[in-house]
């Protein structure tokens, strides 16, 4: 990855050990077959490596306002229905322009985040003060995710990419496991797509963007609603804010729970 710019150079040696890889001691006769997962033959009784998610993150919500974006996600990574890891940040600062909120299989999120971090390091190595823009990261992710999906080996993730570009124009997009992406002033993954998006759309003024205060208030309300209705989250969440004034992840915050309405609901 770091040798991206010299990919035309032939490797320094052939048939030998690569750093970090297992060395094949057959004397170079038969190289070990390293088939991609989707082409490996089935095991006994037709067993195969599973592609089901094991540890998952739930909703991520993103709201764009006049001078930036806010991304919120709770701090739970579930193991099926169990609340296993309760203090995990799922909103990441990628560089001073970009925030990434990850939901879905958390191992895949961590994997792609490591990849992205590597890209940021490469950017720094170029030493020319050019940082990746949020639109470029979103575009790159769609290419990667679509490619994986087309090979029947998806990264089971649904992410929100947000940030500001060079001129300070906010950018907010949602990229999913199939490589589909779209931009809007509100994007969300998981349950938030059904519960939070209508809420935010209702509050959107017709002729202007949200202000920071409005956006922040909406985040608070939506995280509260999500906590009541989504059964795979907890009341603690973090919020990433990226604007012309800076980029960072704030929190953790607690939802202001108020369960008094529960007694008005019959049957649930």
């Amino acid at each position, binding site marked *: 990855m770091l040798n991206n710019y*010299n990919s035309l150079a032939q490797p320094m040696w052939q048939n030998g050990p690569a750093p970090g890889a297992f060395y094949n001691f057959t004397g170079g006769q038969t190289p070990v077959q390293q088939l991609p997962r989707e082409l490996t033959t089935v095991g006994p009784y037709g067993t195969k490596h599973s592609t089901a998610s094991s540890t998952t993150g739930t909703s991520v919500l993103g709201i764009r306002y006049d001078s930036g974006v806010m991304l919120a996600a709770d701090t739970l990574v579930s193991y099926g229905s169990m609340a296993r890891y309760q203090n995990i940040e799922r909103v990441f600062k990628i560089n001073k322009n970009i925030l990434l909120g990850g939901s879905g299989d958390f191992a895949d999120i961590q994997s792609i985040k490591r990849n992205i971090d590597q890209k940021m390091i490469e950017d720094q190595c*170029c030493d020319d003060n050019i940082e990746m823009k949020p639109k470029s990261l979103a*575009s790159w992710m769609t290419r990667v995710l679509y490619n994986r999906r087309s090979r029947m080996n998806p990264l089971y993730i649904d992410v929100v990419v947000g940030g500001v570009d060079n001129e300070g124009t906010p950018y907010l997009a949602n990229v999913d496991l199939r490589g589909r992406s779209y931009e809007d002033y509100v994007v969300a993954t998981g349950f938030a797509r059904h519960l939070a998006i209508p809420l935010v759309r209702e509050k959107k003024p017709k002729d202007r963007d949200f202000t920071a205060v409005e956006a922040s208030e909406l985040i608070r309300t939506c995280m509260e609603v999500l906590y009541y209705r989504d059964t795979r989250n907890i009341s603690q969440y973090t919020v990433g804010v990226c604007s012309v004034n800076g980029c960072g992840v704030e929190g953790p915050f607690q939802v202001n729970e108020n369960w008094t309405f529960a007694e008005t609901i019959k049957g649930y």
Partner: protein
Amino acid sequence: MFRNQYDNDTTTWSPQGRLFQVEYAMEAVKQGAATVGLKGADYAVLAALCRTSKDTNTLQRKIMPVDEHVGMSIAGLTADARVVCQYMRTECMAYRHSYDAEFPVRRLVANLGNKLQTTTQRYDRRPYGVGMLVAGYDEQGPHIYQVMPTANVLNCKAMAIGSRSQSARTYLERNMESFEDCDMDELICHAIQAVRGSLGSDDADNLTINMYVEMVKSMDPPLEADHDALSEEGMSDDDMMDHGPSSSGVPPNDISDMETTASTGGHDAH
């Protein structure tokens, strides 16, 4: 330079620490017709003298657009230039496909330099016999880069390469300080006057100058290209690459004393 026992291979050093094959590749660049690149605050301009062979009427293109924001002019072996240009176009296209953004010029040129370097370090390859002036405009402003067969990449305010380019370089050096304040037309005039110094005695007839102007994208709607008037004067209009105000703002009287009938011998390099 004279033949010696250290110049058979790219991979042989001389006792003085020189790679002769690489230096011979530089000679190929000096055989090509002159080309000039300069930049101001908002524009990067390339100008190239085109040699027309007596037998054919078609122009040998010296300026090649690479992407919407980058173009380059070459001096040296055109076949090598084509391959290098193709590589740069592919890289820019791949970058756009992945990142939905234009390849930062500095990184593109560094990438190219790395590719050229591999040819100077393998026994089974030879250096590319083409020198390039890459002009581009990105978020960091206008750029002019000089790329040579030695894989040296130089960031320039102005540069000229090719045969008899020393007088062009002298002109550029003398006027360099004023480029920052020049508008597009003045920069184009400077480029043409610089390249004029590289005319040889046998270039007297039917000369053609290619122009390439790279500019800020946020300009007002483009002026109408005055192509007809220019083709009457024998100027090639298919190299007026721009996506902003047309570079046909070149005042006619400056061109008219350039064009006369061609007669240059058949050169391999252009």
